[in-house]
């Protein structure tokens, strides 16, 4: 296997493609860098000039409103020029290949690509293409690829956990739901294990768990009540509509009964346990409204921290 493709020869983060294999020091550096950016949002003038004159392309081959918007806000607060491309309805629909699109945007002097793609590994392909064609000064940030990774989501989750829980090395974290299809879960698992969280559990029916998921360093539980016992952090995953009825699950109702987070199940976790969700939520499917809106929910702070974390990532890769 080649050297970690997201670090340059000096060990600096030049792309952010996955949290897998990223040293704990790099993750900590990103989280520390994000801290002051949180307060920028509370100022009268919410801008710093770190990326002034840089062109960032939001390259979304898959629909997204939330992630794209938060990247856009993050870049604008760093004074970058942001160009949004909704490729799902433009060039690839006309037959252009992924790398042709990238080459064309490079010819427009792009400095940064934020990429979302339905295929696992698409951002790696772009990053290795840029290296192979002598454009190592152009950076790639993965905004979600297939089932593989969503590293900025993983980082904002880590930021949120650190904000409320301080020491990673004493925590029990439960990740509940569709791990099989979830890039959020994979990135968070890598982040948590790198930060030496001693107990990471995934809780789901076997139809929603990938083969050999234990190899990622997690404990597998099928019973949610048992799995939540003593947890400090509960991360609920979104269940896609098309997966609620059919071969993976019989119905949304049965799923909620077994794996939906209710006040009663939450009571099994530690009294100060926090509840997280990457959004958008399906109320009444994976999470009950009183829990989502309750005092233990940190779902909205996650969104706020997400912008600061993305500002940190963009400024760090751009300065490598």
């Amino acid at each position, binding site marked *: 296997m080649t050297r970690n493709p997201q670090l340059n020869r000096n060990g600096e983060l030049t792309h952010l493609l996955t949290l897998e294999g990223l040293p704990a020091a790099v993750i900590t550096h990103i989280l520390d860098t994000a801290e002051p950016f949180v307060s920028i949002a509370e100022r009268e003038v919410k801008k710093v000039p770190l990326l002034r004159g840089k062109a960032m392309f939001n390259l979304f081959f898959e629909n997204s409103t939330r992630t794209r918007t938060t990247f856009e806000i993050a870049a604008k607060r760093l004074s970058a020029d942001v160009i949004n491309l909704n490729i799902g309805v433009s060039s690839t629909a006309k037959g252009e290949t992924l790398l042709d699109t990238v080459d064309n945007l490079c010819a427009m002097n792009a400095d940064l690509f934020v990429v979302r793609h339905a295929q696992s*590994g698409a951002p790696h392909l772009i990053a*290795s293409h840029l290296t192979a064609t002598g454009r190592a000064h152009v950076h790639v940030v993965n905004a979600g690829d297939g089932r593989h990774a969503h590293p900025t989501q993983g980082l904002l989750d880590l930021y949120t956990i650190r904000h409320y829980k301080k020491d990673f090395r004493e925590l029990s974290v439960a990740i509940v739901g569709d791990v099989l299809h979830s890039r959020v879960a994979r990135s968070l698992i890598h982040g948590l294990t790198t930060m030496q969280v001693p107990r990471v559990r995934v809780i789901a029916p076997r139809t929603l768990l990938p083969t050999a998921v234990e190899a990622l360093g997690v404990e597998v539980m099928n019973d949610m009540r048992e799995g939540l016992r003593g947890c400090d952090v509960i991360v609920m995953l979104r269940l896609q509509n098309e997966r609620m009825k059919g071969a993976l699950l019989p119905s949304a109702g049965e799923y909620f009964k077994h794996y939906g987070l209710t006040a009663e199940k939450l009571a099994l976790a530690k009294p100060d346990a926090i509840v997280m969700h990457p959004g958008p939520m399906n109320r009444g499917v994976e999470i009950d409204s009183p829990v989502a809106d309750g005092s233990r929910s940190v779902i909205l702070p996650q969104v706020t921290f997400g912008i600061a974390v993305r500002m940190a990532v963009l400024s760090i890769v751009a300065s490598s």
Partner: protein
Amino acid sequence: MKLEIRNGRLIDPARALDRVASLFIDDNAIAGSGEAPRGWRTERVLDASGCVVCPGFVDLSARLREPGLEHKATLDSELAAAAAGGVTSLACPPDTDPPLDEPGLVQMLKHRARLIGLAHVYPVGALTVGLKGTTLTEMGQLAEAGCVAFSQADVPFHDTLMLLRALQYAGTFGHRVWLRPQDHYLAHGGVAHDGEVATRLGLPAIPVAAETIALSRIFGLVRATGVGVHLSRLSSAEGVAMVRAAKAEGLPITCDVDAHHLHLCDVDIGWFDPQAHLVPPLRSTRDRDALQRGVADGTIDAICSDHAPVDDDGKQMPFGEAEPGASALELLLPLTLKWAAAAGVALGDALACITTRPAAILGLAAPSLADGMAADLCVFDPVSHWTVQRDALRSQGKNTPFLGLEVVGRVRATLLGGRVVHEA
């Protein structure tokens, strides 16, 4: 033309012969070895000192991409690759565009291959029309046109009754049936072996059960009909064990493995390397080791190249969208030698896996260096190193997971019917 291949190490797996001697070729056939035949006057000498002289290789799976897929490769380019790889006979699967389901297509292919004259081409005809799995092809006419066996290429049967009918019909007329064991439903949408690597990379997966369930189904039907089946490209340890048991039971089964799967496993996908996107998927190290042992102990009858030239446009895509396949005709020998060296298999036994054993599966006369045999030969240097590079490949497809690998075994000359069709 009277050609003398001088002082080579003659290895003839068919006769378990291994000795240093000269080989005499008169026109298109072998005229003698050791002492020159009576009245012999050498017209041309090919110095084979330090080289192995053996029958030309027989490859059970080489895609030539004609008809219809000429942007990926042509008969001219791929038969040149075959000659450069020492391959003198090859079977090509029917998954061309259109598939080889009409006699005219097969005749044209055979005719073009004969004109090019760099290797014998044995088309494998489509078992069903359009490989759709619903209507039997006119196997009789296809066989007359030159098909040596019938298969679905990589398109699995959904319908077990249809598979039974296909076996019964082919069996009636003694046509050979080749099947790649893979369950359609379990494999559908998958691009990588269902294991740690696919889980880590978030790649849709194909479980080993896709192979074992297909094997059980095939064995059940072979038992019921008595019709023999050749299994193409096993990929798993469980698959090897099932074939071993089926052979022990006496079922008329043969099977092959492709050279990639003898050396690579899912870990070689690394960070989504599309070169490692192959069909069947690269499986675990345990599976790879079982395949290596399976060839060594004879459970697996032959090693094929599974040559599938892919153009750069097809490969420069995200892993799951990238076209599977790799160019391999020119690597069949070095990859076989690499396996043999690691497994402690004697050179003659290793060469049998790419000469006599696949020839038997194709129904060809056993290739041999005996007097009177057609002079389809390979002369190779067994210790010469070379590095697999794009420029070094004759195949139009320059993609292979072995790019950059240093291999041992360089083809010095290939003879087809006594003609030197490649020399390096």
